[in-house]
C-alpha cells in the first residue's frame, strides 16, 4: 500500500501556545485513519494545516510522496484533498446540486448548466451509495443528509483524500451507522479517509488505523484491530479513565416530579408531546431514550416553562408548576442542564462570573444596595471554578473563550450549586471528551446519591444505560414503555425507539 499523505515534523504555534509539535503522520492509500484526541489536543489544527487553512511553522508535507506547499484550500483541493467541516457550509435555500457546484459551476455559454450538474451529482451519489436527491432543498433534508451533501461536494471536486472533522457529533445513532457504511464504500473505491474524533466507540467500529494526539504531540499510531477502548482512552487522556462509573443501589424516596397527561403543541399547532405520564422519585435517575426529534426537547421545555403546555399537569414535590414562567420553575427547585449549551446554557459574551449567576441573578446574596455586588459574584464564580475544576485563566474571561468541556462544567456547577430537588440533564455530555464525560457522569450520580431526582435525556444509548435506574423510551411524542435498568438492553431499547412494541420485543429477544 502506498502512502498518500505524509506529514513530517509539523509544528505550529499560536500566540501563547504551542498548538502542535513535531507531528509525524502517515496515511495509507485506501484506509480510514482516525485522529483521536481530546478537545484542544491539536487534531483540527493539524488537519487545517493539511487543508491549507493554516501554514505550519516548520515541517514538511508530502502528498503521494512528493513534497508540496499547501498555501490555501484551493491548492489542497487541486491536490485531491477534501474537507468536511464539523459545521456545515451549505446555503439552506439552495438545492443540493446548487450547493455542490457552488464555486465551480458548469457553464453553458453564459448560463449555469444545471442539468448536467444534476446528472453528475446523481452519478457520484449512485457510485458511492450516498442516496442524495440532487433536487432537494438543503433546508428540507436531515442533518445526516446534509453531511452527505458535504461529502459529495468534496467528491465532485475530485477529492481522493477526505478529511472529516468530528462527523458524528451531529448525527443520530442510525445516521452514524449509515455514515460508517458510506465511508467503507468510499475506501473500497480507492479513497483515503482521515477521521477526526474523540469518540472511542467510533474508532473501533470505523477505522483501520488510529493516531492518538495529546497536547499537540503524537502519542502513538496503532492498528485498530490490535487495540481496545481502554488502551485508547488511557493514551488519549494520559491516565487511567473510568469509562464506566461504579453505581450503588438507588436509595429511592418520595415522588419529586409527576407529569400527567402532558401535551405540547408548537406554534403551528403540531403536537410534539402527545399525552405523557411519568414520575421520578428522589434518589433515582429516569433516563429518556429516543431518536432525536421524538418530543424529548419539547417535553423538557414544557417542564421548565420554556414552552406552553397545551394540557396536562406538572407537579414538583406535590406543587403544581404547570405553565409557570421559567423564573418560577427555577425558584421552585428545578435545575436544568440544557441540551444546547451555546444556545441556552450560556451567554457566550458574558464573563464566567456573569454566567455563573444566570438564573439566580435575583438572589439576595449577589445584591448590594440597588445594584449587583460584582465582587461577591466573582468570588462565587471562583468557588465554582475551583470546585468543578473549570480550566480557565480567570473568572473574568468570556464564556466563549472556553472549550466545550469547560463550558459544560461551568453549567453543571451552576445548576448543581443551586441545590435543586429535580435536576434535568439534557444531552449533558454532547461533544465532550472522555475526561469531561467521566466528570459529568460522576457528578450526576453524586446528585442521585444525595437524594435528588434526575431526568436524563440523551441520544447516546450508552449514557442512558450507564446512568439510569429506570429508562423511558419516547417515540412519536409518547412514552412507549418504561423499563427497569436491569431489564434494558441496547437491542430492546433500539426496537422500542423505532416504534416497536416493548412486549413484542420481549418475545423477540427470548
Amino acid at each position, binding site marked *: 500500500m502506498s502512502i498518500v499523505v505524509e506529514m513530517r515534523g509539523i509544528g505550529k504555534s499560536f500566540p501563547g501556545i504551542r498548538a502542535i509539535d513535531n507531528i509525524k503522520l502517515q496515511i495509507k492509500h485506501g484506509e480510514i485513519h482516525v485522529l483521536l484526541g481530546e478537545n484542544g489536543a491539536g487534531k483540527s489544527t493539524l488537519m487545517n494545516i493539511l487543508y491549507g487553512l493554516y501554514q505550519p511553522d516548520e515541517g514538511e508535507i508530502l502528498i503521494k510522496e512528493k513534497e508540496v506547499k499547501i498555501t490555501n484550500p484551493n491548492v489542497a483541493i487541486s491536490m485531491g484533498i477534501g474537507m468536511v467541516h464539523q459545521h456545515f457550509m451549505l446555503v439552506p435555500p439552495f438545492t443540493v446540486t446548487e450547493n455542490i457546484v457552488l464555486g465551480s459551476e458548469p457553464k453553458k455559454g453564459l448560463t449555469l448548466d444545471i442539468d448536467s450538474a444534476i446528472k453528475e451529482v446523481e452519478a457520484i451519489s449512485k457510485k458511492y451509495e450516498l442516496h442524495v436527491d440532487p433536487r432537494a432543498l438543503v433546508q428540507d433534508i436531515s442533518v445526516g443528509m446534509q453531511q452527505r451533501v458535504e461529502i459529495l461536494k468534496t467528491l465532485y471536486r475530485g477529492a481522493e483524500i477526505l478529511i472529516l472533522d468530528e462527523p458524528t457529533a451531529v448525527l443520530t445513532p442510525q445516521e452514524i451507522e449509515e455514515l460508517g457504511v458510506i465511508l467503507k464504500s468510499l475506501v473500497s473505491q480507492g479513497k483515503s479517509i482521515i477521521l477526526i474524533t474523540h469518540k472511542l466507540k467510533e474508532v473501533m467500529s470505523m477505522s483501520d488505523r488510529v493516531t492518538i494526539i495529546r497536547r499537540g504531540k503524537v502519542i502513538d499510531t496503532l492498528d485498530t484491530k490490535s487495540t481496545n477502548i481502554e488502551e485508547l482512552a488511557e493514551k488519549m487522556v494520559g491516565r487511567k479513565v473510568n469509562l464506566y462509573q461504579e453505581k450503588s443501589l438507588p436509595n429511592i424516596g418520595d415522588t419529586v416530579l409527576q407529569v400527567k397527561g402532558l401535551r405540547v403543541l408548537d406554534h403551528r399547532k403540531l403536537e410534539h408531546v402527545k399525552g405523557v405520564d411519568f414520575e421520578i422519585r428522589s434518589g433515582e435517575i429516569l433516563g429518556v431514550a429516543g431518536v432525536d426529534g421524538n418530543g424529548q426537547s419539547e417535553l423538557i421545555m414544557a417542564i421548565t416553562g420554556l414552552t406552553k403546555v397545551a394540557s396536562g399537569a406538572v407537579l414538583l414535590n406535590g406543587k403544581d408548576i404547570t405553565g409557570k414562567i421559567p423564573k418560577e420553575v427555577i425558584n421552585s427547585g428545578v435545575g*436544568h442542564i440544557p441540551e444546547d449549551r451555546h444556545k441556552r*446554557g450560556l451567554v457566550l459574551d458574558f464573563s464566567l462570573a456573569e454566567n455563573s449567576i444566570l438564573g439566580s441573578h435575583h438572589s439576595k446574596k449577589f445584591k448590594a444596595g440597588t445594584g449587583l455586588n*460584582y465582587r461577591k459574584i466573582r468570588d462565587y464564580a471562583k468557588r465554582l471554578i475551583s470546585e468543578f475544576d473549570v480550566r480557565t485563566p480567570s473568572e473574568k474571561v468570556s464564556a466563549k473563550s472556553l472549550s466545550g468541556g469547560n463550558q459544560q462544567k461551568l453549567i453543571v456547577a451552576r445548576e448543581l450549586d443551586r441545590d435543586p430537588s429535580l435536576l434535568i440533564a439534557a444531552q449533558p455530555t454532547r461533544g465532550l471528551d472522555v475526561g469531561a464525560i467521566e466528570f459529568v457522569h460522576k457528578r450526576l450520580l453524586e446528585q442521585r446519591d444525595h437524594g435528588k431526582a434526575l431526568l436524563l435525556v440523551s441520544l447516546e444509548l450508552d449514557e442512558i444505560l450507564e446512568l439510569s435506574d429506570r429508562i423511558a423510551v419516547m417515540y412519536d411524542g409518547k412514552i412507549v414503555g418504561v423499563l427497569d435498568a436491569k431489564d434494558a438492553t441496547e437491542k430492546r431499547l433500539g426496537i422500542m425507539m423505532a416504534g416497536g412494541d416493548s412486549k413484542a420485543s420481549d418475545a423477540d429477544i427470548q
Partner: protein
Amino acid sequence: MENRKSELIEEIKKNAKEISYPLIAIIISFIAGGFLIYAFGKSPMVAYKSLIQGSLGDWNKFGETLVVVTPLILTGLSVAFAYKCGLFNIGAEGQFIIGSISAVWAGWAFNGLPPVLHVFLTLAVGAAAGGIWAGIVGWLKAKVGSHEVINSIMMNYIALNVSNYLTMTFLNEEAKAFTHEIAQSAKLWRFAEAFAQFKYSRLNIGIFIALAAALIAYYILNKTVRGYEIRAVGYNPHASEYGGISIAKNIVLTMVISGMFSGLAGAIQIAGVQYRANNLFGFTGYGFDGISVALVGNNHPIGIVLSGLLFGILQKGGSNMQLNGIPKEVVGIIQGIIILFVAANFVRIVFDKIKENRHLKQKTIREGK
C-alpha cells in the same frame, strides 16, 4: 481597600480599552480629512485651526458647542442603551420631537409652579413622553414581533406631524409658526446668569444633566440586575429565557428607558435653549446624529460623551471653516470617514494584521538562523 483600588484601576483600564479603537479611528480620519482638504487646494492647517477656533475658540463658542453636545450625548445614549438589548432604536428622532413638544406643554401649562419643581416637571414630562413613544415600539416588538426599526421610523413621522399639529393649534402662539414660550419658572439655569464669559452663549445646566445621564446609563447597564438582564437578552435571548429572564419585559423596558434619554434631550432643548417649539419643516437631526454618536462612542456611555463632544465640535466648527473659505461639506466628509472607519472596525483589523506580521517576521528570522 487595596483590593478595591486595584479593581477600580482594572475597571478603568477595561473601559479605556473599549474606547481606544474609535479614538485612533478618529485621529486617522482627521489625517485623511487633511489630505482631502489639501487636495481641494486649501491648507489643512487653516481648516483645522478654524474648526477649533469656531468651536472652542472662546468661552462663548465653547458654550454654544456644548449646547449642541448636550442633546447629542443624550440621543447617543438612547441609541446605545437600546443596542445593548439587541434593539436598533432609529426612533430617537421622533422621541426627541415628542419630548420637546411635551416639555413645551408642561412648561407652559403649569405656569405658577415654584421654579425648581416646574423645571423638574418639565424635564420629567419630556422624558416620560419620549419613553412612552419608544415604549410603544418595544411593546409592538414584544407582543407581535414587528421589527423595531420599521416601527420606530414610522413613529418618527408620526411624531413630526403630531408635534407640528400641536404647534399650530393647541400650543400655537397666535399668528406665528411656533408655540407659546414656556414659563420663566420652567427654564433651565444658564451659565450666562453667573459667568460673564458665557454671556453670549445659551449654555445651560443641561450639559450636566447629560453627563449625569451617561453615568446613570453606565450604572444601570453594568451594575444592576436590570442591566444584567438587558445585556443578557441582547447577547443571547434563548439563554436569557432559560435563565428565567423575561425577554418581552426587558425589550419594553429597554425601549422605554432608551426613549426617555431622547425625550429628555428634547425637553432640555426646550427648557434650556429654545424655550418654545417651532413648526418643523423636517427632522431636527439630533436623533439621527445620535446613531452616529453611539456608533463612534462604541455604545459605551463614556465613549458617547466623548464622541458627542467630537460631533458638536465638528458641527459648530464647520460653519466657521466656511467663513475661512473651506467648504462646510468637508466636515460632513470627515464625519463620514470616521463612521466608515469605526463601522468597519478598521483599526482593530489593522492592529491584528500588524501583530500577525510581526509574528511571521519573528518566525522567518528564527528559520533563517
